[in-house]
């Protein structure tokens, strides 16, 4: 399977199953597109007629042979032989948990109406995780991590800084046990910024591998949703804190993470605002909410969003040329590295190697399923007891979804988000079609960007 497309002046041919990428002129593009379905003599004749002023049958025959050589070398029209391997990685690492999302606070000091976690409460009661529950969660992770060395723990909420003392105590506990356990904890803190102060900054810069800072971009966009309980916008209060935070990180990982909604399908303006504020590691996510929610993206928004993704990729190339590069989370593609095929077909890992822990110690397949009682997997004292649900997540891979089998982007999303699929279709093995369309556009842009950058390095 190939995916040919044209973007930003490039004719790009992706060989889906080998991961090979070819940049071609328009004649080669037509030749490759017609290669499999049109007999050689017919295809050459048609292209010789179409491009009579640019080429001739000899050149076309030479190019045809080149395409055949690429096919024989496993770089074009590579068949998908991966399906039998789909469950193997999960089977091999069955029972191994490598990451927990600790919901240290089901409370929040902001009241954002678009919050998938319903203002931090996850459709339940307000709650704070105790040190004892958090400590047991860390022990549970170590006990179930097998030979895995790097263990990842996210402090999430709600607003995790509303329980900062427990966060600090849990990190201290983790550091006290990791050497003897032969493990290394990598912590991430996701925060809305309201409680960021010098102590938080020092702590996070010392202990957190990554911080995710919530900012939606333009003040009027941010303050439309991200308000306190009195209805006051938070932009003015958090932006200076985030600027100090990022400056003090001294190059350590962070993402400025925004959400775009029906209110700002023109989200590139928000990315521009983030850049103007001095931030360079950016993520901008489509809102996750019910289709009848006023903030939900509509069909009319889609072409605007698609165009914004293209303009974003062009802006990144422009900023590269100016020596002012920036990162967009979804456009980070390492063509020569990146995940192996097992990772690409295994699904996201929710419910098997990654779980969320509620403030009272229940386990859920991921943070987005918290509050959906039927997805409760068990708890951190007795472990997973709901094997029926866990088996469903274990079987969730790219080949478990019929729509994915014919999608060219399947090895870049690994079948997509189980929670998005569930909320869109009622099944974790469904597909969230709107999200898939946006994802495919993002990958087209990301691949174009990576290709353009590689070409520039070669020249």
């Amino acid at each position, binding site marked *: 399977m190939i995916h040919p497309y044209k973007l930003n002046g490039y004719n790009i041919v992706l060989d889906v*199953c*080998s*991961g090979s*990428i*070819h*940049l*071609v*002129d328009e004649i*080669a593009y037509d030749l490759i597109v017609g290669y499999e379905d049109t007999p050689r003599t017919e295809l050459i004749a048609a292209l010789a007629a179409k491009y009579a002023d640019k080429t001739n049958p000899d*050149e*076309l025959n030479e*190019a045809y042979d080149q395409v055949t050589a*690429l096919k024989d070398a*496993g770089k074009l029209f590579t068949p998908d*032989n991966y399906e039998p391997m789909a469950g193997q*990685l999960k089977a*091999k690492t069955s029972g*191994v948990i*490598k*990451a927990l999302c600790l919901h240290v606070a089901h409370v929040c000091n902001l009241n954002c109406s678009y919050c*998938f976690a319903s203002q931090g409460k996850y459709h339940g009661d307000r709650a704070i995780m105790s040190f004892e529950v958090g400590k047991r969660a860390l022990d549970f992770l170590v006990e179930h991590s097998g030979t*895995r*060395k790097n263990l*990842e723990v996210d402090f999430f909420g709600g607003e995790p800084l509303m329980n900062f003392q427990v966060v600090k105590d849990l990190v201290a506990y983790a550091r006290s046990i990791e050497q003897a356990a032969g493990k290394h904890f*990598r912590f*991430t803190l996701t925060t809305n910024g309201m409680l960021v102060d010098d102590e938080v900054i020092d702590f996070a810069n010392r202990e957190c*591998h*990554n911080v*995710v800072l919530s900012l939606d971009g333009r003040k009027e966009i941010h303050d439309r949703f991200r308000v306190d309980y009195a209805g006051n916008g938070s932009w003015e209060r958090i932006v200076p804190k985030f600027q100090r935070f990022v400056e003090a990180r001294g190059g350590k990982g962070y*993402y400025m*993470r925004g959400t775009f909604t029906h209110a700002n399908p023109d989200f590139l303006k928000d990315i521009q605002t983030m850049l103007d504020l001095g931030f360079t590691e950016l*993520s901008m996510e*489509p809102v996750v909410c019910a289709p009848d929610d006023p903030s939900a993206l509509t069909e009319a928004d889609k072409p605007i969003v698609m165009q914004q993704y293209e303009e974003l990729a062009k802006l990144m190339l422009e900023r590269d040329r100016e020596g002012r590069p920036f990162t967009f*989370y*979804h456009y980070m593609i*390492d*063509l*020569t*590295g*990146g*995940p*192996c*095929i097992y*990772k690409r077909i*295994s699904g*996201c890992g929710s419910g098997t*190697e*990654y779980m969320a822990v509620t403030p009272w110690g229940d386990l859920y397949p991921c943070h987005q399923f918290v509050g959906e009682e039927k997805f409760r997997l068990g708890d951190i004292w007795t472990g997973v007891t709901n094997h029926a649900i866990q088996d469903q997540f274990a079987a969730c891979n790219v080949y478990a979804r019929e729509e994915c089998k014919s999608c060219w982007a399947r090895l*870049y999303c690994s079948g*997509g*988000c*189980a929670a*998005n699929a569930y909320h869109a279709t009622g099944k974790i093995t469904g597909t969230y079609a709107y999200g898939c369309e946006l*994802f495919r556009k*993002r*990958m087209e842009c*990301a691949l174009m960007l990576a*290709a353009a950058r*590689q*070409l520039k390095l070669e020249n």
Partner: protein
Amino acid sequence: MIQITTLETRNLCESAKNGGCGECQTSCQSACKTSCGIANQNCENK
């Protein structure tokens, strides 16, 4: 001259040979939290 430029990419078929170590990050954890993409993740073995 008809142009076909093949970029340097990781060969996914070859990457099947070591069987996958599983050391890499889970997909949206530590980052976006609301959508699954694996293409932007690092291989811990590279």
